[in-house]
């Protein structure tokens, strides 16, 4: 039984990690050739990301969009989650339900919706701000859920205790609620950041004609000629994702966010 367990676990791990390993190997190829096992070992395709100006531009675009949209999403989510939790406002709860909806639907629906909206808004179409807003709305569910979880983890007696010691509403928020909920808000931010960085279809339909994000550039490269740079970018992305989720695990409660009981 034990051996069977190990066998299954090994196969599962190989299944999950294997394809990524193959890509990692391909990214080390010395020549402009996608071979596995790699022929020769070099890191030139990694330096290419930062040296080739078009890849570097796509990287900076993606980072900028991810950073801004994650910030915006947290800013939108915070008052809603707070109003629903602290004051039990029905309106806030309705907003919360509405804010989660875009993430549940197939993304192409929201992508098309944004395309129709922004093309009808004239010269705003193609502007970087549109994809920032679109990603913030699409990914709003993540900070909404993590912040709500963080707030629900606060024992209401803590708030009452701080009130009996003379804290008004504002002070309670600043000294009790914010410090406890902040790691969860950070987790929401990080989730948004990662998913925005990797998002393709909404970026394509909002700014695809004017701005190249990394996923768009990769997709175009897939169609019009291969280069091991794509493989090195895939490895870079996996690394960035792992680092960010490890940060969440370090500074927030990953298992709780993912639904485990304490």
């Amino acid at each position, binding site marked *: 039984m034990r051996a069977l367990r190990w066998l299954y676990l090994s196969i599962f791990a190989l299944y999950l990690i294997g394809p990524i390993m193959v890509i990692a190997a391909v990214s080390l190829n010395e020549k402009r050739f996608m071979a596995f096992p790699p022929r020769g070992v070099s890191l030139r395709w990694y330096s290419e990301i930062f040296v080739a100006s078009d890849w570097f531009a796509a990287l900076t675009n993606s980072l900028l969009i991810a950073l801004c949209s994650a910030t915006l999403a947290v800013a939108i989510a915070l008052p809603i989650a707070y109003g629903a939790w602290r004051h039990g406002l029905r309106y806030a709860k309705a907003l919360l339900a509405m804010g989660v909806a875009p993430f549940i639907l197939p993304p192409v629906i929201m992508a098309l919706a944004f395309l129709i*909206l922004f093309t009808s808004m004239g010269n705003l179409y193609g502007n970087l701000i549109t994809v920032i807003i679109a990603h913030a709305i699409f990914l709003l569910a993540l900070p909404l859920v993590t912040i709500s979880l963080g707030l629900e983890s606060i024992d209401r007696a803590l708030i009452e205790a701080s009130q009996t010691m003379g804290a008004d509403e504002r002070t309670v928020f600043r000294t009790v609620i914010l410090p406890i909920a902040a790691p969860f808000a950070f987790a929401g931010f990080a989730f948004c950041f990662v998913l925005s960085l990797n998002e393709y279809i909404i970026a394509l339909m909002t700014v695809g004609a004017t701005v190249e994000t990394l996923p768009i550039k990769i997709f175009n490269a897939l169609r019009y000629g291969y280069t091991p740079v794509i*493989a090195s970018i895939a490895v870079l992305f996996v690394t960035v994702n792992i680092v960010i989720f490890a940060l969440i695990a370090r500074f927030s409660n990953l298992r709780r966010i993912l639904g485990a009981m304490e």
Partner: protein
Amino acid sequence: MGGLARYLTLVPSSVMIGAFFAVPFALILLTSVSTPDDAQDYIYAFDLQHFERFATWFYIERALFSAGLCALIAVLSLLIAFPFTYMLTGFGPRAQNTWLIYILAQLSLSEVLIAFSWQILLSRTAGLANILVWFGLAEKSFSMAPSAGAVLAALVYLAVPFSVLLLFPALSRLDKSLIEAARTLGGSPLRTFFTVVIPVTRPAIISSGVTIFVLTLGAIIVPQVLGRPQHWTLSVLITDQAIFNFNMPFASALAVVLLVLSASVIFAVTKLTGGNKS
């Protein structure tokens, strides 16, 4: 803070959600029933011609293919992920965190990159076929994509990390004393798994299946990169209509069909199981 002030803090968020979720959402519905116009491309009316165009065998077949493919993927990915998730919840906190970090990292990985990695895996030069040659199972290496099998394999790979995370809450909250009780009553580990663990977590399995179904309905790149046009799903057709044919009304009509398809599956299954899950 008074009652009014509480609502005032919600104004910016309301405006954002209203302007950038409710309005565009309504625009899709309106555009799907618009009518062609010479001057403005299309004007809002109540014209069902785009839905009539959908109601031909070509598009209905596409919708049925999408639904069937996604249902198959939901089942396969749950089958692969369930035993692992069950074992995962028995690990210590450190091991759990490590696995969860990796699974999240892969889950967040762009569909573009998943499609790319499977393209490499299934290619003639760097792919799995070389392993078959190595074992002497094939004469010489060959390309496994594009094909329906390639689309299926890559989409299952895409869905497995999601399945793990969707099953994780229910399995980690599963009362372990239930299992111990079944073991003391003489059940073997395997028997306990099938007679206790699976029935107890059935609602979570079903709702995870629905979520995977809707999620894979949204896949766009894998069918394009690893499939032939006859393997395209509704999402790909919508993109195609919107980006390459500039036909917003028909793209919207297809989006409404996709919306109705996902919503009705979600609704039907939650109604049937009577459970709700976030």
